[in-house]
């Protein structure tokens, strides 16, 4: 066994996986990764199951040190500069840290959450099939709280498998897609149009429980109290002040505010990765389209392994390379909208 020690880490970082399912009827929050595609990509790179537990790193920097042997890791999600002893480490690739080496990640450059997957996964005590941290309920393992410097994971020694990169599917761009309802009839047409036609920003007070949206106040037809009913990831509820809240992974299982719309499964990770202050819009789609996108999204996750490539000629991120003073290579914009440099053959 090796150890991976958290040398430093910012707030809003915790162990997350596919979440805790089957006990919402008892009020048990689901939790799990804010960006499931990125979690799955990082895991796939090191040969783990897509929704194995990994470290969800919030918007701030973090560093991890291998001890008692080598540790193989991968990162995916919100782009950030990453290096090991000054050598840049690209997003969406795997890397083996030798004993004593430290991987340093900078702030997220756009988006919020980056996933560090560890080959062999994280071991801990499963509760309802999950290690995901839900700090309010004291759940999560090995640490039932956000991570702190000094925490460590007991992990498999690196297998020595060749390093990989992953070519992720082109993410959807444009508005965050929603299906109207379940309580869209608590709003008149003018207020539904206001919701769909306005520009929104995510408030800085948002967290894993909910993203508060800044924009025009949405008015209810019959007041803001409804009899509590069930919530889902992506429910957009409108409390009394008219400022919508998109419920995220640490949501309560029920809520008493009307829900005007629900973010489609395929776009929840995109919403999760929308930085505070960035303007965006919503767009209503049909149930048929939403379900088609959900099926494609699930399929994309299940087939991520087909997108693995040898890490040779790996695409490195521009900032990291600039920092490393290797200007002069061909630059192209890639799907994720981040600038990357392709090393010339």
């Amino acid at each position: 066994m090796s150890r991976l020690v958290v040398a430093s880490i910012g707030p809003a970082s915790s162990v997350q996986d596919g979440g805790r399912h089957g006990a919402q009827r008892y009020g048990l929050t689901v939790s799990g990764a804010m960006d499931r595609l990125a979690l799955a990509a990082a895991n796939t790179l090191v040969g783990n199951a897509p929704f194995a537990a990994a470290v969800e790193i919030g918007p701030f920097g973090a560093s991890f040190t291998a001890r008692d042997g080598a540790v193989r890791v991968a990162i995916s999600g919100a782009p950030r500069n990453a290096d090991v002893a000054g050598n840049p480490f690209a997003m969406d690739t795997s890397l083996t840290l030798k004993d004593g080496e430290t991987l340093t990640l900078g702030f997220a450059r756009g988006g919020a959450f980056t996933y560090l997957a560890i080959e062999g996964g994280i071991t801990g005590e499963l509760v309802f099939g999950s290690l995901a941290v839900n700090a309010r309920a004291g759940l999560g393992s090995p640490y039932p709280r956000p991570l702190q410097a000094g925490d460590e994971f007991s992990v498999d020694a690196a297998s020595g498998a060749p390093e990989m990169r992953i070519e992720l599917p082109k993410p959807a761009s444009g508005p965050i897609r929603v299906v109207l309802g379940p309580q869209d009839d608590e709003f008149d047409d003018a207020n539904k149009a206001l919701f769909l036609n306005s520009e929104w920003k995510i408030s800085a007070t948002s967290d894993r429980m909910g993203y508060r949206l800044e924009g025009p106040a949405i008015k209810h037809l019959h007041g803001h109290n409804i009899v509590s009913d069930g919530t889902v990831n992506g429910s957009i509820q409108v409390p009394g002040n008219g400022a919508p809240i998109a419920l995220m992974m640490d949501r309560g299982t029920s809520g008493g505010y009307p829900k005007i719309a629900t973010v489609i499964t395929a776009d929840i990770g995109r919403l999760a990765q929308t930085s505070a202050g960035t303007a965006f819009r919503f767009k209503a789609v049909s149930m048929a389209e939403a379900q088609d996108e959900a099926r494609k999204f699930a399929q994309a996750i299940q087939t991520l392994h087909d997108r693995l490539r040898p890490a040779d000629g790996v695409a490195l991120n521009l900032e990291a390379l600039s920092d490393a003073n290797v200007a002069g290579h061909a630059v192209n914009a890639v799907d994720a909208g981040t600038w990357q440099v392709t090393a010339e053959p």
Partner: protein
Amino acid sequence: MAATLPPPRLLPSGDSAVTVEFSRTIDDAANQRVLALDKALAANPIDGITETVPTYRSLLVHYDPGKIGFDALGDKLLPIAIQPPPPVTKTRRWRIPVAYGGEHGIDLEDVAKALNTTPDDIVARHAGGDYKVAMIGFTPGWSYLSGLDKSLHMSRRQNPRLLTPAGTISIGGVQAGIQCLAAPSGWHLLGRTPVRTYQLHRNPTFLTEPGDRVTFFAIDHKTFEELDRAAEAGEIVAEQVNA
């Protein structure tokens, strides 16, 4: 064959869940239909349903759109949902000990004043009630009860408290509640129970189920401390009566 009931509304909750809504208000008949549908789906699962969440007035059905679409699921749910709920033959009843008032029920005196009566009378009316767990939600084990004495119906607090203690026994609007974990609340705090409706590493982890009956009985604060220690060690400390 018994006459069928009006169909519920099927409200889309995104692409992977549907809210089967029987009523827009708190209504015991609707809640019975919610629990009956929940039970019917547990007994005869529909392929593709991943999880169901009963609430006062609706059943939230989570499903995998890779296995079944919205329309096909609705076609399967509706014929079940319009059946009259079968008579409830077996119910569990929990007798829950409560230390009322004082530090454990900081709103008891104010509630008594607001309702022009004495704290003892409030306790008698609250403990004298026959409740049903209508739903569990918000935080683990938070059991929402129907059956609160009409004379105890009162608006929630103007200013919700940011943190109320684990085990809080409270009332809000037409509802009564058993709260398990410390949480924010706008309800009126009448007392505390040592009973954990949710406790990891205990079998069962969750004590209450939607549909269970609940009654309360008063204990003194010393008994609370004793039972609280026993509960912490994993004892259930609620009395179970099968009817």
